[in-house]
């Protein structure tokens, strides 16, 4: 990879300063995407600012209505957290399906959400649960956050500090992994929240994570797998690649959604 200047910072303020000062700096959280990208020479930042020393970005707090997860909390910590499992078991399950054990030990929720990989799992949970992305500057509703492939509403220098997930009445995530990469070929997060039913799909959309309104309204009337059995997402906006055609992805969305509804109980 190309060489870069490395900065380990102790606070988000310090991180923001380093980002501003450098010619072309990038943040590294767990590094599970950034480091492979650097190794493949697909990026050549002048400076890499490491958030792993910012201890107040790590941790999980649960109150009566929500679960708040610090941006630098690893997937392993989320899936292993009895607090998360007690409050939103679907979220703990989802975290346990990201990558492999070693990726879960390093990869963080903030890094995943900020990267907005169209096949990542966390965006489905954020949209599916109606989460709030908390940053150094503001709070952003998940529905407004994921703006496109690898693109988010984050401004230059703005850093995610936490994600706040409202507790749903019930929820489940079903993932059909890409056989090679094990990213989501199709992942469907279904939740009945206090504000209604949400169905979020990752892996399939050619513009990243998206909601399926038709399923949401059907499930609002009848939260049962059969209620959505005949609803198929049009394959026009879906990815088609060597691993799955758009047609197959469309079919899997319905199957995974039904299974998620059944699992949510």
């Amino acid at each position, binding site marked *: 990879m190309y*060489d870069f200047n490395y900065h380990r910072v102790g606070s988000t303020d310090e991180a923001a300063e380093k980002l501003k000062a450098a010619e072309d700096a990038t943040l590294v959280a767990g590094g599970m995407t950034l480091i492979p990208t650097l190794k493949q020479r697909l990026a050549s930042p002048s400076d890499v600012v490491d958030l792993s020393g910012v201890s107040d970005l790590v941790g999980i707090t649960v109150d009566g209505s929500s679960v708040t997860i610090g941006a630098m909390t690893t997937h392993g910590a989320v899936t292993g957290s009895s607090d998360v499992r007690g409050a939103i078991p679907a979220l703990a399950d989802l975290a346990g399906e990201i990558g492999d054990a070693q990726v879960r030990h390093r990869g963080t929720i903030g890094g995943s959400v900020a990267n907005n990989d169209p096949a990542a799992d966390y965006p489905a949970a954020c949209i599916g649960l109606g989460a709030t992305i908390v940053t150094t500057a503001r709070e952003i509703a998940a529905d407004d956050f994921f703006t496109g492939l690898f693109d988010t509403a984050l401004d230059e220098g703005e850093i995610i500090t936490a994600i706040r997930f409202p507790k749903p009445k019930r929820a489940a995530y079903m993932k059909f992994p890409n*056989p*090679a990469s094990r990213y989501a070929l199709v992942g469907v997060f279904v939740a009945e929240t206090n504000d209604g039913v949400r169905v979020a799909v990752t892996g399939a959309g050619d513009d990243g994570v998206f909601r399926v309104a038709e399923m949401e309204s059907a499930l609002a009337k009848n939260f049962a797998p059969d209620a959505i059995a005949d609803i198929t997402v049009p394959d026009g906006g879906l990815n088609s690649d*060597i*691993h*799955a055609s758009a047609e197959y992805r469309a079919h899997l969305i319905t*199957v995974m959604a039904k299974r998620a509804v059944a699992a949510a109980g």
Partner: protein
Amino acid sequence: MTATGIGAAVKRVEDFRFLTGRGNYTDDIDRPGQAYAWILRSPHAHAQIMKIDTAKAAAAPGVIAVFTGKDLQADGIGGLPCGWQVNNKDDSPMAEPAHPALATDKVRHVGDQVAVVIAESKDEARVAAELIAVDYTPLPAVLDMNAAIAGGALVHEDAPDNTCYDWHIGDAAAVDDAFKQAAHVAQIDIVNNRLVPNAIEPRAAIGDFDTATGEYTLYTTSQNPHVIRLLMGAFVLNIPEHKLRVIAPDVGGGFGSKIYHYAEEAIVTWAAGKLRRPVKWTAERSESFMTDCHGRDHATHAEMAMDKNGKFLALRVATKANMGAYLSTFAPCVPTYLYATLLAGVYTTPQIYCEVRAVFTNTVPVDAYRGAGRPEASYLLERLVDRAARETGLSQVEIRERNFIAADAFPYQTPVALEYDSGDYGATLDQALTAIAYDKFEARKKKSAKTGKRRGIGFSTYIEACGIAPSAVVGSLGARAGLFESAEVRVHPTGSVTVFTGSHSHGQGHETTFAQLISDTLGVPFEGIDIVHGDTGRIAYGMGTYGSRSLAVGGEAIMRATNRIVDKARKIAAHMLEASEEDIEFKDGTFTVSGTDKALSFGEVALSAYVPHNFPHETLEPGLNETAFYDPANFTYPGGCHICEVEIDPDTGEIEIADFVAVDDVGRVVNPMIVEGQVHGGVAQGIGQALLEGCVYDGTGQLLTGSYMDYTMPRADNLPAFKVSTNTTLCAHNSLGVKGCGEVGAIGSPPAVINAIVDALWDDGVRDISMPATPEKIWQAIQAGQRAAAAE
């Protein structure tokens, strides 16, 4: 059987170093003053090189030198040679285009090597390589074999119609006649999918040059260092063999991909001499994908003629085989002599005709990968037999039993050149049926159906030819090398033993298995035996390890040398015990004079061999060191029965391998633990081929499956626990009775898996499924089958 002798599951000698991080793989080696090479590779599948400007790269920090194909040409460096010539139907030789170590005028596949940068560090070399300006004129790429032979762009100007050869075997007229008599004909069109071998250790090479002696040393990830020395020394670099040492230290898996002589080996060796510095190159995985030889890639149409009882009358096969962009070392023999000669399988088919057209395309060269030709043959035949059963209404068991070569029919001459020496296919099938509880299959199928799942069972009763190979036979078939093996057994004065073998171990456990042969024969303690391999500087000669040949050929060479040790030691013992040689018995490490209590241990005899104070030197030489070169009389013929049971979720097309049974006849088993491990690994690669793995190029020749992100490697959760056992008949022409076990798993398993899927989905109207049978393919096949049924 002793605790460390033949037949014992001895724990492996090599494991301690591997488990403690003390293995010594090529990339673990650093030579003093070493520089690093980075190869600039073609981003185009096919392009003319107009100009290469290396000036900026040469001036970059840390750069020692930049070389292109012109520099190699200027030094008289030859192209990479092909080791096997196949002739056309009219007996003219195949097209054999040049394969430059660095491209000169044209690049012919993505990854083709264009230039090399040598720098003080790998990072500096890599950064500098990006500064090389290559002016390419892209040419149309040919990727599909049908398109390649239909005209259009030529990969090589001297290979018209992109054809390497158009070869055949068998009696076409007799086959045509038999088809006229047929009551049933089963037909099939098969693609044997292109695979990437993916040994977990990427290839690496270090060239070194000793300015004092003028000797070159190449450290390389090779399955056959002597072959590399011969090919590279004699044909590429013009270095005499006594000035070239090739060391293949611990090698992290090969599966065929590390047999061949690769350009990087020649480049680092040449550069080391030129720069008077060691030069190291290590592949990144993405380079492995686009430079390690790929495997398989056949397209075949086949037809089986049968009489009214389902007895096979004749087989007709037409195959197109992809050679890729250049001929790799063994490539031409894979779809011919390692493929078509196996088309009799375990059956008495009296007439067989097969024609094979080998085709150049703008893809990575294709060569032998675990099984090499034989998986393609067994897949074709066992899919066709499955279809024949359905055509005739016979069960999968019945059609096989009606056509098996009987256990008392050996030696059995097939119509496609080979003479099988032993086997009992019926007994092997029976053992497999018991192991999978075949009688309860219907009950299991019903149980699956209750949960909406489809269950199917698939059979494969295969044979293969390994123990490669009788030199006279392969020579007559176009091999440009002999395929014998050498061994030297050196007994030291205190009775410990060092064995020098030309076989190479890269996971097979030779250091254990070969030591068992010595321990068993000489009765010396297992701990006192060392096996040395992988170094042309220490071992007389060797043809290396591939084609499941190590025990059947290399092991037999060791046995011969060891028997010579016993003969010599017997002479010494006779002298020491003042008895006649005929009266000396040797058992469990002790020489005795028969009928007396006079005895000498092997160690005492060994010591005496080196302290020959009273030897009659005219008739008895000192020393105890013997060499043997063994050239086998025939191939060996392992065979077996694999049965796979699958359960399919029709909602998603996901497949679970519910059970997998492998009963293999590998001849005598020296170490059952190691044999089972070899079968496990082969079966996993076979299941990988059937369900997961497949190399995909886009229309411009870019490799879409160029990393583990897109090429599906079998993982632990893709595979079941395997039920593996053996059913032994002994090889009739080697003293150990061994056949070979390294490839049987990969040869036998793919048709069992695919036949199981077709069986599971038969009632859904599915008649065929191609490899890899991914969930989407299965789901689409079910949809198509149901649509077809609805339309009827």
